[in-house]
């Protein structure tokens, strides 16, 4: 009982040096061997206590000499280290490979400390008298990282021993609280002289990099979802710091979190970080890797309740767009210094495939559904209409659930942090009032505040016949109506493919044009976009841009070059390109048909009349290109 109450308070008694604490009836701590009573008291939490209803007031007699709480000296990066450790432990608990923490994240963290000259360096960044490590190791190169197998981040190391080793001797229990270097950390931040300093957002970026390194099938959107749902500590993560590490004053500015950063923001951060760390080439992400679109798309198809039969088509589109190559998906500082966005790329591939097979121009997909309904003898043909109705219902209720989750989410910390210590009592008072109101309404509604934690899952939806499923599964259904066998080659019956203007934007000046063109896009396409945006929890702009990027790849490089030239001309004449949306239709070639060539040309020249592209020549080439895509596709499925 006492053991619980003393909450592992393990300091030796000041009189007899024994560590044997008990708690008296008044809640005070006393030494059981010498009966010395110390200042420390057990905090009694009584939620039913309501100050103000009792009529007791105390008149203070000046300030009592306050003895500051004991804390040890610590630096900001130690705090982040603990937070990272907690995050990594949470991920391990969720089933991430055990190599993740010690072999990958820990190494990355060490590289980070070294590169940002916060540790493992002869030339530390701080001017503070505080020394990070007694030994000045010769750890200049990344190759020697593995030599340092110190177990700082390992779970079994307890905090006080680390404290001892870092502070040098245990007599250094200082009277100060708060981190040592918050002020210098912040001023350095302000100067923006280096981007290397740690931030809460960067912890997520670091986790993401580590996850990519060991090829865990956790994409960035998955990670952010786990963070959002509270399975990985992020909001108020500082509360889990060891007791001796007191946060105070400016620490609040560094550790307090008011948002879970967006997909885009973390990706950007990770991209900067990866360059900052100068990491060697990542292990190649082959087709067998779960991060590769080839396998990731399977998961997304399942989550969207699309038939498995679509997967070969996705793979073909991927190959035609040149996205099967593992080099494209593997970060390499020298060859490909861009961190791929696996989740967005895969979703874009699926969207392009859907457009290819079903048209998604607000006509073709419904016609195909009608045909599917007509021909359907076995009841096993995939119909876009049925799928849309099913998923739309589930999507609406899932969106409502998510909204409720957002509304119920509690952000405030148990131990509020405020940069201004003078205002601390105000903050504490507000906190108390808020808590009591919350308790009052919790009692009234007999439902606890805060969002319910669902069990973590890779899937947003659950399709099947079981309890709690969002609807019947359509995974086994066949694409009979949408895909026909022509000359022993499976070919989509849909023969047209539309896409918006594919001109590349100026990389820095232009932002997404999605909001401008959204109203002109076919509704079914926008709906599909929004479905995947919901699955990945990204704004539609990002996915739209990614889809365009995939379409650009699909139509080839030469086209892009032409477009750039054209854009240069356009800019000269001052035409607004964003207004012009080229909804162009290309006549897809019938795969493997010999005599189709002439007809294609005719069709295309006919179509180019309504197309906004200027150069007919490139149009033809485009058609040619698309045709080859089709024939490739057909060949792939015919085999």
């Amino acid at each position: 009982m006492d053991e619980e109450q003393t909450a592992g308070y393990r300091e030796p008694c000041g009189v007899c040096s024994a560590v044997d604490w008990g708690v008296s009836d008044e809640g005070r701590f006393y030494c059981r061997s010498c009966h010395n009573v110390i200042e420390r008291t057990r905090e009694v939490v009584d939620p039913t206590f309501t100050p103000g209803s009792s009529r007791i007031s105390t008149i203070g007699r000046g300030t009592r000499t306050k003895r500051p709480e004991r804390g040890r000296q610590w630096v900001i990066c130690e705090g982040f280290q603990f937070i990272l450790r907690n995050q990594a432990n949470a991920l391990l608990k969720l089933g991430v490979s055990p190599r993740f923490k010690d072999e990958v994240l820990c190494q990355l963290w060490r590289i980070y400390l070294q590169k940002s000259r916060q540790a493992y360096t002869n030339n530390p960044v701080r001017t503070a008298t505080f020394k990070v490590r007694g030994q000045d190791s010769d750890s200049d190169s990344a190759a020697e990282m593995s030599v340092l197998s110190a177990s700082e981040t390992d779970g079994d190391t307890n905090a006080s021993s680390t404290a001892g080793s870092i502070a040098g001797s245990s007599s250094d229990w200082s009277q100060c609280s708060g981190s040592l270097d918050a002020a210098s950390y912040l001023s350095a931040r302000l100067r923006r002289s280096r981007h290397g300093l740690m931030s809460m957002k960067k912890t997520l970026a670091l986790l993401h990099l580590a996850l990519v390194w060991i090829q865990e099938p956790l994409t960035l959107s998955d990670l952010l979802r786990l963070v959002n749902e509270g399975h990985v500590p992020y909001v108020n993560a500082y509360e889990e710091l060891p007791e001796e590490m007191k946060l105070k004053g400016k620490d609040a500015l560094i550790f307090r979190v008011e948002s879970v950063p967006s997909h885009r923001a973390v990706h950007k951060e990770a991209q900067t970080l990866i360059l900052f760390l100068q990491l060697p080439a990542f292990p190649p992400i082959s087709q067998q890797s779960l991060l590769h679109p080839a396998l990731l798309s399977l998961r997304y198809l399942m989550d969207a309740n699309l038939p498995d039969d679509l997967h070969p088509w996705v793979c073909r589109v991927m190959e035609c767009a040149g996205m099967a190559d593992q080099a494209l998906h593997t970060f390499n500082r020298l060859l490909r210094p861009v961190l791929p966005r696996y989740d967005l790329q895969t979703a874009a591939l699926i969207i392009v495939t859907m457009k290819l097979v079903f048209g998604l121009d607000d006509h073709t997909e419904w016609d195909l559904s009608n045909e599917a309904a007509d021909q359907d003898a076995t009841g096993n043909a995939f119909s876009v209409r049925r799928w849309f109705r099913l998923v739309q219902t589930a999507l609406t209720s899932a969106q409502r659930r998510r909204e409720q989750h957002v509304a119920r989410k509690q952000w405030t910390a148990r131990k509020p942090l405020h940069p201004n210590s003078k205002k601390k009592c105000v903050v504490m008072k507000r906190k108390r009032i808020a808590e009591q109101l919350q308790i009052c309404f919790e009692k009234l509604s007999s439902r606890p505040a805060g969002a319910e934690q669902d069990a973590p899952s890779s899937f947003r939806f659950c399709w099947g016949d079981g309890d709690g499923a969002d609807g019947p599964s359509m995974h086994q259904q066949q694409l009979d109506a949408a895909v026909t066998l022509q000359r022993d080659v499976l070919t989509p019956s849909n023969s047209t493919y539309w896409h918006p203007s594919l001109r590349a934007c100026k990389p820095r000046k232009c932002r997404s044009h999605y909001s401008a063109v959204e109203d002109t896009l076919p509704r079914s396409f926008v709906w599909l976009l929004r479905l995947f945006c919901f699955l990945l929890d990204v704004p539609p702009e990002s996915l739209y841009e990614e889809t365009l990027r995939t379409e650009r790849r699909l139509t080839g490089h030469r086209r892009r070059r032409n477009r750039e030239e054209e854009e240069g001309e356009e800019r000269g004449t001052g035409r607004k390109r964003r207004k012009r949306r080229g909804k162009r239709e290309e006549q897809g070639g019938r795969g493997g048909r010999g005599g189709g060539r002439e007809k294609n040309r005719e069709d295309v020249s006919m179509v180019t009349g309504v197309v906004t592209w200027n150069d007919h020549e490139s149009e033809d080439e485009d058609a040619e290109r698309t045709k080859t895509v089709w024939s490739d596709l057909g060949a792939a499925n015919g085999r």
Partner: protein
Amino acid sequence: MDDLQRELLEDLDDDSDSSDGNSSKGSKKSKLPLVNPMCAETPKETGFHQSTRVCLEQIREALLHHRWQEAAEYMACYPQMLEDPTNGTGQPYKELIWRISTEILHHHPNSKMEDYNNIYERMKHSGVRHYLMICLEHSFHLLLIGHIEDAKHQLSVAESWRHGKESAAQYQRIKLIHAYRSLLDYIIWCDKKFTRSNTEYPDSGDNQDMHNYFRQASVNLKEILKNPGVWDPFILSYVEMLEFYEDHEEALKVLNDYAYDSTFPPNPNAHVYLYQYLKRHDTSERKLMKVLKILHVLVPSHELMLEYSSLLLQSEKRSDIQKALGVVMEMLDFACWRSNLDVWERLKSIIQKLQLQEDWKDVVSGQMAARKDWWPALHFTSFHASKDSEENPELMKVKAPLTKILCPDLMLKYTASQVTSGE
């Protein structure tokens, strides 16, 4: 240093979502006054603010649809708004939380008095600005469920509350608190009076007790009633107590001040109370008529005008009969008296008395001159005839002969078939 921190905070905010294109960015700002800017989504919103905004929207929806249970559930999640780390926006939310919370408590089936007490106490102490208002509301709620002593206690606490400089608004509220506290004294006084009248031998202790309440209330009320304003219920209770202790001078003075002090807003009730008081104490008719004359100017359609006209009718002066005619006809200008039998009968008796004078026709036509073109439409159409004959034949009998006298040169349709047959 503060600038530094602000910049830092902005810097930290920047990290959040700045790069996500926002479709609402381009939309123009409306020039119309926004109903509730508190709920607006801002382009750079932190997750915390998003949560509280969405939560408030959910509460609002639930309240509008009377889903009190759901509202209470979300309300449990909302108080974190009070801990908003960005400073300076706390105030409106406190009021919001206070009002929404009590609204939910009013309707939730499981709400108990202790919940009310809890919420009121919490919100009172969350800031100084609403302290007095919440105290007042709290005591109103206690009154509503009959806890008069508790309500009085609340007000006494509020009375003794001081915080820094009293702003103008708080000064007004303190006066209100004083007034209501005295009103509660009066209510308790009434209770004591009632129990005393029921017991056969009231002992002096009870009397003393009762008198204490009177004294407490009167001291405050006397002060309060000096302030210009509309104090109707307070005046009534004060006068009642004064009457009970037979302090007629003071009572009359209070009522006179209330009615005739020009700094007070014009208040017909003040004259009504004065009239009723004077009438209770058998004052002369002249004085009564004087009060009613002023009331007549303020509210010509007041129901006391019937009494005024009867007083005028009883007087001996000739001009008073003409005045009475004017008063009653002015009453009939108002649609609310249109089918009132008493008023028409009064008009009839006035005209009958007037007819004793020689120039009565001139007097009547003088009064009717301005009404000639619209009274027929207001009172004497065939529709009125059929309606009156159906609903109120008595009225028909009074009204019909009067038409001839009031509008002798007009052919009115009020004298419809039934009436002519009656003649």
